């Protein structure tokens, strides 16, 4: 195998994993920015999205598009339920909200374990073949993940930047009391943001299901990654999440290919400590008001 080939694969893998992390981190930071809750259950929605897709598309042979929509829709509904029953009571209460999300994570992960068992499932590839550019080949299965994630991030950006609900969300993230005074229906924005975040996680799960194997335990790692990325990029910043996600994805891919997986984790940990010490508002975050 040539060095070029390995390099190209490493970059593609890094971008793929990075874009998945970007999707996870955006949902995570939206929920934090708007509801002030660090959601430790975020990755469980990723896991459930992946599982539903694996069952619908992989085991039951449903059409691809139907499987995607059903998997995301069902996960979003579950997210809505969790928001209504649990999270809404804790918005603004950072400490208890975070602890409650840990409880939700326990419940979701282990319900999946009881329902679907602990053995890992594989999903047949959605696309096959390779794209070859200048003698270097890129597997389509991975390129599809990258493209799908880019489409999601771009549409989300349009949604946040150019629609009424998007503007309302930004206003609530900045100051929910002022937003309320301005006539924004905060009680609609909270669940909307939560469901949107959960749907992004579910979509990430759907995208990754054919590439990874699916089990009830796959949710924690992306939660940690989302958290790390959001701190690196800046709490509440979407561009920060994109930069942070790609950075972490590439570190992981390069360190994983050329050195070792645990070195990459340690490297990421050091990056976090460095950012937190030198630029606590994150690479692209705005400074919070002091005092």
């Amino acid at each position, binding site marked *: 195998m040539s060095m070029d080939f390995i390099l190209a694969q490493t970059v593609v893998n890094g971008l793929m994993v990075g874009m998945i992390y970007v999707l996870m981190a955006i949902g995570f930071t939206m929920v934090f920015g708007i509801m002030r809750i660090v959601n430790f259950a975020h990755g469980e929605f990723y896991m459930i999205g992946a599982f539903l897709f694996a069952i619908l598309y992989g085991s039951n042979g449903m059409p691809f598009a139907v499987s995607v929509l059903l998997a995301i829709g069902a996960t979003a509904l579950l997210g809505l339920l969790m928001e209504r029953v649990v999270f809404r009571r804790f918005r603004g209460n950072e400490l*208890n909200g975070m602890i409650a999300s840990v409880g939700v994570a326990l419940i979701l992960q*282990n319900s999946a374990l009881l329902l679907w068992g602990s053995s890992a499932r594989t999903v047949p590839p959605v696309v096959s073949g390779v794209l070859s550019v200048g003698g270097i080949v890129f597997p389509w299965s991975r390129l599809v993940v990258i493209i799908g994630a880019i489409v999601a991030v771009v549409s989300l950006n349009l949604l946040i930047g150019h629609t009424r609900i998007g503007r309302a969300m930004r206003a609530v993230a900045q100051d929910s009391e002022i937003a309320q005074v301005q006539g924004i229906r905060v009680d609609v924005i909270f669940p909307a943001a939560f469901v949107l975040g959960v749907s992004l996680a579910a979509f990430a799960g759907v995208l990754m299901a054919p590439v990874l194997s699916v089990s009830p335990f796959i949710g924690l790692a992306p939660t940690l990654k989302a958290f790390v990325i959001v701190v690196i990029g800046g709490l509440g910043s979407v561009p920060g999440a994109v930069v942070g996600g790609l950075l972490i994805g590439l570190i992981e891919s390069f360190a994983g290919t050329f050195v070792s997986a645990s070195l990459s*984790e340690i490297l990421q940990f050091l990056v976090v400590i460095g950012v937190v010490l030198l630029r606590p508002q994150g690479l692209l975050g705005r400074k919070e008001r002091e005092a």
Partner: protein
Amino acid sequence: MNPSTTKPMSYAAVAVAVILAVLLPWFAPNQFYIHLATVGCINLMLVLGLAIIARAGQLSMGHGGFALVGGYVSALLSMKGWPPLLTLFIAGLTAAVIAAALGWIILRLRGVYFVLVAFAFSQIAVLLALDMSSITGGANGLVGVPPISIFGYVLRAKPQFYPFALVCALATLLLTWLLYRSPLGTMMAATAENQRLTESSGIDTHRVQVIAFTIGSGIAGFAGALSTHYLRFISPDSYTFWESVSYLTMLVVGGRDGVLGPVVGVLVLTPLPELLRSTEGLQHIIYGTMLVLCLMFVPNGLASLVQTWRSRQRVARTTTAVVAEEVT
């Protein structure tokens, strides 16, 4: 009821509880109950460690990581021939030193960052244990960790180990109680309740939080080591994120305010995993549900039900006194 009768009554309750715990091996129907009680003692130490950190207003999602470090340190040193009784303390000290360094760097920032760093630290501890397999045995862990021996008396079987675990747990409980009553403990509570005001009363709240994190994590390291010498085994799976979560559950369900909360939380939740060993998923669902329900309906924990009842009496007393004064 007035304070002068409350005090002796609670001392009596404590004495009865301690006597019951000491006598357990004589009336336990079988060894399983002794095992359960030993696990309870170890859990109590871990939850008390977490409670001390929470007392100063922080939440550690990496508590298990410190127990893991403690377990490996003590296992490796004792397998080299060091006396386990000594390595237990070295384990606690190692965890404390790591916590002090991490805490000093991280604790001056917002709580969210602290949570992340402690969480990430525990994940890295697990990864390192997996990765450095020439030292740690990788995923298989370390088997055949030497038992603790006290002046030649080897704590090999459950009935022998239990008294030692009980002594350790009671000592930790006593230390925590003394800490809470001390100026440092008072500062910790003040910091948690209003950090800005505490700082403005001349207290270095950053230092107070670092000390709380150091003590709490040190206790976790010691307890992790204790458990390792009890089970004679440690592996990267011994203390994952979900173990940290179960200590947190015990703390929240029992109550975060005093030393009674951790005791209640451990008593209520320790038997569960042991009884539901065959269906681990169900046990975690129960933990998760209890955690969420407690936060919703008794956010100060089950122990607070007792305290609420007591303070109602106190308020009733003072308001009558005030009214009486105002009338005259």
